[in-house]
């Protein structure tokens, strides 16, 4: 008994020491730009960019492996901010034009398919899903960032992406050119 305990403790201490020394010796200085980029990213680690978490995404962007438009929840505003930080070239600007048209997406749960398994509820990075065991879940649209986390885990495929529904609060007139002759309110004089 005593023999086992001492050997395991010695092993643990030795390996720990080794790891600690290795961390000191082989320490890699992360460029400060990564921290800066991570600061502006949403920080929800949703994984939509294809990298494991916002930190990894920031690193990829700093290395130039990812475009400034990598973060869909951030949208155009964030892309512009990132372009400013990284000093992206005109190529990035061209991508931005396409991004402006992208509508904000949110998750939607078909209630008749929901079994109340709470899998999505546990996965949501912003706690935008409410529900309990064997209770139908629903999405708090204002908190949803439109990542795929919940869609992937749903066993009954009851969750889809859809454009954020318009309400009286966020509705506004379309650009007049897009709807010729609509929305004019004038009388003849």
């Amino acid at each position, binding site marked *: 008994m005593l023999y086992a305990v001492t050997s395991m403790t010695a092993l643990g201490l030795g390996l720990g020491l080794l790891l600690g020394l290795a961390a000191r010796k082989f320490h890699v200085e992360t460029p400060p730009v990564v921290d800066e980029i991570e600061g502006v990213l949403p920080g929800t680690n949703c994984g939509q960019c294809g990298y494991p978490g916002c930190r990894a995404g920031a690193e990829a962007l700093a290395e130039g492996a990812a475009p400034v438009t990598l973060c869909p929840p951030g949208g155009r505003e964030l892309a512009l901010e990132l372009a400013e930080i990284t000093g992206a070239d005109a190529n990035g600007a061209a991508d931005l034009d396409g991004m402006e048209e992208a509508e904000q997406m949110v998750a939607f749960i078909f209630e008749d398919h929901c079994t109340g398994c709470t899998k999505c509820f546990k996965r949501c990075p912003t706690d935008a899903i409410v529900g309990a065991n064997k209770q139908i879940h629903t999405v708090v649209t204002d908190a949803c960032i439109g990542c795929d986390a919940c869609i992937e885990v749903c066993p009954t495929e009851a969750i889809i992406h859809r454009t954020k529904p318009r309400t009286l609060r966020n509705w506004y007139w379309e650009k007049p050119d897009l709807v010729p002759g609509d929305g*004019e309110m004038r009388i003849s004089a």
Partner: protein
Amino acid sequence: MTIFPLAGRFDPARLFSFKGGIHPETRKFLTSECAIEDMPVPTVLRVPLQQHIGVEAEPLVARDDMVLKGQLIGKARGPVSANIHAPTSGRVLAVGHFTAPHPSGLPVPTITIRPDGDDRWGDRLPRMRPESADPDEIAAQVAKAGIVGMGGATFPAAVKLNLRARYDLHTLIINGAECEPYLTCDDRLMRERAEEIADGIGIMARALGVKQVIVAIEANKPQATAAMERYHRVLGYALKIKQVPTQYPMGSEKHLVKTLTGKETPARALTAELGVVVHNAATAHAVHLAVRYGEPSISRVVTISGRGITRPANVRALIGTPVAELLAHCGGLAQEPERLLLGGPMMGQPIQNPRVPIIKGTNGILALAASETRDREVMPCIRCGLCVQVCPMGLTPFELNTRIKAGDLEGAARVGLLDCITCGCCSFTCPSNKPLVQTIHFAKGKLAEQESRKHQQEQAKRLAEARQERQEAIAAAKREAMAKRKAEMAAKKKREAEAAAAETPKNGETVK
């Protein structure tokens, strides 16, 4: 050469009118001689829970409930919100969603009531004697009655009455300008209910604790001016009745204040910063009813006009009356209207569905025939600068338009996009028919959306951090619980071992 009357020259209302503005054909003659008539109770009432700026009210009734006239059915939620009352007695058919009286046609939470025809009053609010009432009590009563600005902005009136806590107020201006063409509801109300309006003004002046009260009426309403002039003293306040020039947008509160006091309201600030509060004449009437008789805001006067209407009229209708029933009450449509508007022709909102209800801020329903609307052929800007000349806010609409078209919303905001009151003078005057104000509408909406997205991202970050913190806390709690259990187990084992140790010698003794 004629000598101008000197007295007139020193009237500040003439000296300091505002820059810009337009003089559209008013077309008020269609309804200005039509006395206010009471609309019979309609077959169905749809009362939206969002009739005001701010958060929608919370429904207090359920399906199949019986409600009485004046009963509270929607409770104000948050500081800028308003109570909603049942306009008549009847059964609640549904508490759900219905098309909003709004150009988007999106659904809005609505309580549908089937009137029982009795029009039976429930409990009214307690009556008050404003002569001896505390200003706070008056404001509370106005809040309970769910009164909102009835000129169309629908800002809760009680919130405005409570401004005295934050600003040093000295002047109350009653807005009877009614500068929108076609509309005559305030004009008729002032002519027919001058005494009640004057009383309401006195009550509001008392609630605000102001020193002077000015009633501003446009010069094209001499009868209303004469009617109001008969009540120059109420509740100890002297009412100054002032004629202001007929000029659109005189009814905009900032411009009315500029005209009457010569002071300009700072950009994106309230007129209260100048010590001035502006209330609509119809709001004063609603306040009178609420304070003297305890009647909540459940009806209003609506002008139904335009060449598309068989019999244009001013109608006192219950809130929630469908537009279609009001049109039917006025003999229906004479011809297929080019445009159906809620509100005036300049700032009114087009609606697609005539089944939508009227709400507290609806001052007119206009069915405009093709002869009353302009052709829409848009031509290039000819740089005439007319839009700059007429802009009452001193903006450059053509520049805003160009910037917005180029997608430069930040640039547009820098040159005053957010100061625009969307009065439509620029579009009205543009010889090339350019949709200037419409473009600004779009840009304002887009900018607000961008702001809200940014806000949402910050919130998402906060939520994510909170979640992480929580998960760490859960993990820590689990570890702790585990450690505690381990310690307990160890203690138990130790006790057992001790017990066993204590027993062994005993056994030995017995063996002996």
